[in-house]
Every structure is written in C-alpha cells, then in structure tokens.
C-alpha cells in the first residue's frame, strides 16, 4: 500500500508540474518599460544607459548606420545579443556599425536581448508589444506620421531574459496606423515600405552548455 501521505505529495508535485507546463504555454508579455529604446514612447530612453552617457558617439554612430541604401528593397534582419542594457548596446553596435555577424547560437542560462531597429524614414516606428510564447516571439509595431520634415531612426533593446534551450523564431509584424491619422489624410505605409524600413523577422537557437 502506498501511504496516503505519499500519494498526496505525488499529486501535489504533479499539480505543480502541470501548472508550470501550463504556465510555459501561456504567452508572456515583455513590458515596454523594460525596453531600452530610442524615440519610442513608454520605453526607457536608451540615452540614459551609462554606455551612452559616457560615450555619446556610441549611439550616434549606431544611428548613422541606420541610413537606408537608396536601392535597398528590404531591411536587414533583427538579431539577438548576449547580455542586457549596456552590454547589449555595445554588442549591437559591433553588429550594426562594426559589421560583425550576429550570433545565431547562444548558451542557455544567460540573459539575451533582441535588437529591433528601423532605418531612417519620415515615420516614427513605435513598438506596440512584445510577446513570447514558448519559442515564438512576436514583436508588433506601428508607424506614426508626423508633419515635421525630419527623418528618424529607431532602435530598441528588448530583454528576453534567460531562455531555455530551443529553436526560436522572432516575427516582426506591422499593426495598422491609428484611425485618427487616416482621418487627417495620412496614408498607411505599404508593406513594401515597411519591408524597407523595419528590420525583418529572424531566428536563433539557444543550446544547453
């Protein structure tokens, strides 16, 4: 006979495991207030990172690197880097400015940051939300028009935290422009426009050490 107490413990363990499994299945929303970004509302101002405060040229050169080529039909892919905040920015700089190849394989048990960016354009590109469900990550954004004759580029460092081993896909999706802008006569950018301006979807793999 199995003691009742043992059964109870086993049941409890199973229940917790099931709950954990269910929890893993639930989408996790990454709050925008945890995202370091340039020119995006509700995020943390990337200019407040020590790496930028101590070396403003770091960000400026990165911005300059986000100048689209005249005949480019599509933007580069987004990517991930190890670390968060200052470390993530420096590594992103090495990729976008230095030309380093972004890592596709990253070790489990270390913090990972997704780098989202848009090239210089007459739109603001604002993050709407970032959601992760298991190995699928979805980044949604929208274009915001402005009547000023300036062009802006955006970059966002999205902390994904420590990820379990697996093959991850990151989708980048465009949400519709606010209705009020359409009412004011602004046209929604085409998908071709979006493809040229905003970084594209990408994949990466997290492996156990």
């Amino acid at each position, binding site marked *: 006979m199995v003691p009742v107490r043992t059964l109870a413990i086993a049941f409890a363990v199973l229940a917790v495991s099931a709950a954990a499994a269910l929890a893993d299945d639930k989408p996790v929303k990454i709050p925008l207030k945890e995202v370091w970004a340039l020119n995006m509302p509700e995020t943390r101002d990337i200019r407040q990172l020590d790496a930028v405060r101590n*070396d403003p040229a770091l960000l400026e050169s990165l*911005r300059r690197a986000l*100048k689209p080529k005249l005949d480019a039909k599509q933007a580069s892919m987004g990517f991930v880097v190890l670390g968060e905040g200052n470390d993530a920015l420096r590594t992103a700089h090495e990729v976008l400015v230095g030309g380093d190849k972004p890592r596709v394989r990253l070790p489990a048990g270390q913090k990972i940051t997704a780098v989202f960016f848009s090239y210089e354009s*007459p*739109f603001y590109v604002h993050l709407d939300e970032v959601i992760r469900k298991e190995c699928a990550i979805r980044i949604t954004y929208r274009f915001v028009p402005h009547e*000023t004759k300036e062009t802006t580029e955006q970059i966002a460092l999205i902390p994904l935290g420590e990820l379990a081993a697996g093959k991850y896909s990151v989708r980048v999706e465009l949400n519709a422009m606010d209705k009020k*802008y359409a009412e004011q006569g*602004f046209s929604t950018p085409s998908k071709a*426009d979006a493809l*040229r301006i905003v970084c594209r979807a990408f994949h990466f793999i997290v492996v156990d050490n």
Partner: protein
Amino acid sequence: MKGAVHFVVWLFFAFVAAHAIASQDTIGPDGINSAGLTLFNGMPLNGSGVDIGQVEEGRPALPGYDSPANSNSFVQPHAAYIQNGQDIKPDMNLDAGHPTIVAGIMISTDNHDDTMPPNGDAPLGIAPMARLTSSAYVTAGGSLAAYRDYILALQFIANGNYVNQSTGKPKLSPGDLLDGNSQLTLGVDWVAQRYDALNVVAGNQGQPTSQMLPLPTDQFNGMTIARSQKLGGVYRQVSTQNNYTEDADGERTSISLIAPGDGVEVAGPGTSESIVNGTSYAAPHVTATAALLRQYAEERITNAPSALWGPNSRHHQVMKAVLMNSADKMKDDGTFIPPGETNPIPQGRLLGMERTVVMQDGISTWFNSDAYDDSIDGQGQFFPLDEQMGAGHLNAHRALEQFRPGERDFNAGEVPMIGWDYGTTSGTGDLNANRYQLQGNLLGGSFVSITLVWDRQVTFASDTVPKNIYNSGDSFAPYSDDGINPPDDSIINDLSLYLVEKGGSIAQAVAASISSVGTVEHIFFQIPETGGYEFWVVQEDDDVGSTQDYAVAWWAMSAGPMLGGDFNNDGIVNAADLAVWQSNFGSGSAADADGDGDTDGNDFAIWQRNLGMTAATINSAAVPEPAALLLLALCAPLILRRRVAVFSEGSLTP
C-alpha cells in the same frame, strides 16, 4: 578715438566669433560658410535687429516660461504664438522638441561642445541675434481646415518677414496634382505677394511614397529646400534621402537650393545636443542666411542710403535671386573636368565657387543635368533648375558677395560684374526688354550666372470683410489646369532671360532661359569668346498684367583689368601676395602691379587697395573682405617694419 574703440570692439567680436565658429560643421567652410561674415563696417553679421519667422505644428520652447526640460537656454525666441496670435501655455504645443531644434539652427547661441562627442561641433546658430517669432498652427493633417489654420498662422507673422516652414501637409486626395493649385499652396503664395514674405519650405524626403507631405513644396513665390549630405567631409552631395517622386507636376521643378540636412548637430530641449536628419534642418540654414543678408542691407540703408541701398533690398524676390544665383555648383580650383573634356576648367573661371555638388548617385554634376547647356541651341534653356539640387548648394559667403554690390539699375548705365536689381518690366516684346549691359569684357571660357525670379499672382475666390486679409472662410481662386504640363502659363506673366553680345539682338543671343512653366529663369553658361555682353529681361506675355515686378542677380568674370596686387596669380589678393611683394621689393618685377618694371611702394599701394578682392569682384565695386582688413591690421607692424628697414637703407623714398 571713436574709430579706435570701434576697431577694438570689432577685433573682439572677430576673435570671439572665430573661436566660437571655427569648427562648426554646417556653418563653416564645409557647410554653408556663414561663419565669420561681417557687415560693411566690419562688425559681425549675426542677424541683429532682423525679424524672422517660424511656422509649423508646434512652437519652440521659451526659456523661463516653459520647463527647463523642454527649453534650451541657448535658444531664445523673441515670441511664440498659437495660430493667429492666441496666447501659448507653458509646455504645450512643443511637438516633441522639433520646433526648438529648428529654431536653434537659426538662433542658438550655444558655442560649447559639452554633451556631444568632443568634435568641436557646437550647435551655434547662423543668426544668433535675430528675433525669431513663431506661430504654431493648431490643426494637424491634410484638410481644408488644416490648410486654413496653416495660412492663418503664416499670415500672422509674415509681414516683411522671412519665414521658415519645416513642415508640410498631405494632399486632400492622393490623386491631386502638385500644380500649386491646392488651397494651401495658393495661400502660401498669396501671403508672399501680399506681405512681401520669403517662405522657406522644407522639401520632400524619405523612401515611402505613401507618407509624403508635399504641400506647399509646389509653391512658386518662395523657396523649397532639399537636404545635402557630406561627401569627403563637405556638404556637397544631394542627400539620398530626398524624395523627388512628389516633385511639382509637369516640367516645373520644386527645389530651389540644397542645404545641410544630414547629420546636423543641434541644440535640443533641455541641455541636450543631438545629431538630426531632415529637410526640416536644411530649410532654416536658408532662412537664417537671408536674415544675415537683411542685416547687411539694413545697416547700409541706415548708414549709407543711396540708389544702391534702399527698400528694394528687402524684397523676398531679391533674397531668392541672390541666394540662388550665388549657389555652388562646381569648385573653382582648376580641377573640375567637364564630362567629355580632357582639360580642367582653369581656376578663376567658375566664379569662385567653393564646392562641386554631386547628385544622389554621388557622381553626376550640374553638367549632367537637364538644366545644363543654356546655349541658344541647348535643352537647358527650357529647364532653369535641376530637379535634385535646384540652383545648387547654399553658400552664405558667396551670397554676401552677390548681395554686397547693392542694387544696380540697368537704366543707370553699365552694371558691374556682380550685382542684383529689383525691377519692373515695361511691357511685352523685345523692344521693351530691360537690358543690363555688363561693364567691360567678359573673359572667354569663364562662366556667367544669372537668376531671374518673380511672383505668380494669386487672387481670392471669396474674400470676406476685412478685405484683402485672409479670414477664416476665405478661399483662393485656382487656375484651370489641363493636367498635361501644369501649370499652363495663364497664371503668370512669362518672363525670359537672354544673354546677348553687346549691341546685339535676341536673334543673336548666345544663351537663354525661356521656361514657360515657372517663375524662375536661370542661366549658367560658359562665355565662348572674350567680349562685351548684356543680358535682357523680356516679358513674353501679359496674362496677369501689363508689367511685372522681378528680381535679378548676376555674377560674371571680367576679362580685365588685371587684378592688381595678385602677384601670385591665384585669383585673390591676400597675404600670399604680400609675401611675394616683400621678397621682391627693390630687386625685381615679380610684384609689379603698376607695370613700371619694378617692385616698389606704388605696387604695395595697389595691393593694399585691392586686398581681399578676387578676379570676379574686381569690377563689382566690392569692398575688401573684413577678414582681409583684419589681416592687414595684423600684418601692419610687419609691413611697417619691413618698409622702415628698407627705407632706412636710403635706396627709396617712402
């Protein structure tokens, strides 16, 4: 004593200015070259006493009124309003700092490079002492109400003003033509003619064709500005971010000039400095340069009123003609080889231009433009301006050279090689042409530049009381557009420019600009043979009046006399020539300015008289560059010492 004090004050300003501006990115020699310009009396040109305006969706922050986080203590607008004079409220209508940044390019007094990388690029404004008044419109987007509010805001500050508009509006319908017929563009052009305002509007940019703000870039009476980017450290390439898919419809082109708009270091809200991109930041370079010229004119009008300096110098058409005619196209350094040629154009033949401007492809120049070849057999005579660069790159230094000779009326006799005029045609036809005879001969192989501008006429379709003022509910009369090659010339008096050998007729013209779709004509032409020339302003039709006011600016190179004092033959009289004179004094003829076979005090006197002049300015009655005066002042002890030493030998008399 008063003069001495004056000189000391000037010297102080010159020293401070030189230190404040020496490394400026967009206002130094690699930018628009506005730094260090001076008034006739040698005092710095800084916009003092000049009113300029700013219209966009927001208004710049006012230090002491708006919060420190939003304002910048170095950017002090004179006043800010909402719409047509409504009061502002603290920290409202600031539009994310954009208007403050735009204002800073014009009037920032920040000459410190504190927060940016230590590259010395302090965000000092072009006209830091100008009085900037801003008027923000209140309705966003593209609608008749939004257009109305834009015009109301503009009208409120337009009177006699140069107004920067780093903003734009969508069309009412995507299918609308950019033919100047929208109520907004009609209104902006009406304001220009009614209030004699120079509207400086930022051009279109950015890759997505779906997000253009094309109105009122299709204006006729103001200036539309595209942006330049650096090439080899110099702002001289048409930015790849300009977008010409929404240029004016038909053969007319929208762009007047290009100016720095890429990687512009600016003073932003709070204590921030940042680097920004956009035609938003190109336009204020032009507006503020106009303010510098206005300051120059006001000083002359006050202290030396004459036929050369009067109210005509304030007209928006004059500013437009001067700024466009003095734009850089090809660097005058003896290295530029035209396409298909093997030899470079000799130095001094390109009117002292300071950079070679290339198109978006990084290679093509004015010589590859539709606008090139204004010869009487060339296609360029039908296309006054280039679609990408307009007349070329803004150059404030050359604009002042262009402006400084003052107004030169063709009725007053021959005109100098450099000048401008505000005139009126006296009717149609060749016989009524206004003929400007250039003094002396033009040098064969050199270039001549002539720019003619005038206004289109805009009238009300509905004009409520008070009349002749734009009121809410008023509307402007569009013209009937056949849509084939808009606009047809029924909305303008068509003017043309001809370059003719002296005493010749239009039938014998060697070059022309005869476009019929706009209100600008521009000749940039290589003189085939040394000789006398004149240019004609001809009214071709009288669709909107029997006469037409216009402004014309010209710049040519004389074949003679030789530039006395230019001992090293580099086209400018400067310290290098003094060195030649010193080394040859009393012992040779290498610095023989008066042609008597020796190098003596008389030759020095000629050098002294022409100090600061260039080959192009020798006949323009221009005054020496104040910088040259400073040079003279600094060199004086050396010169005197040298002369005393030589004279003490008893070989010459002073």
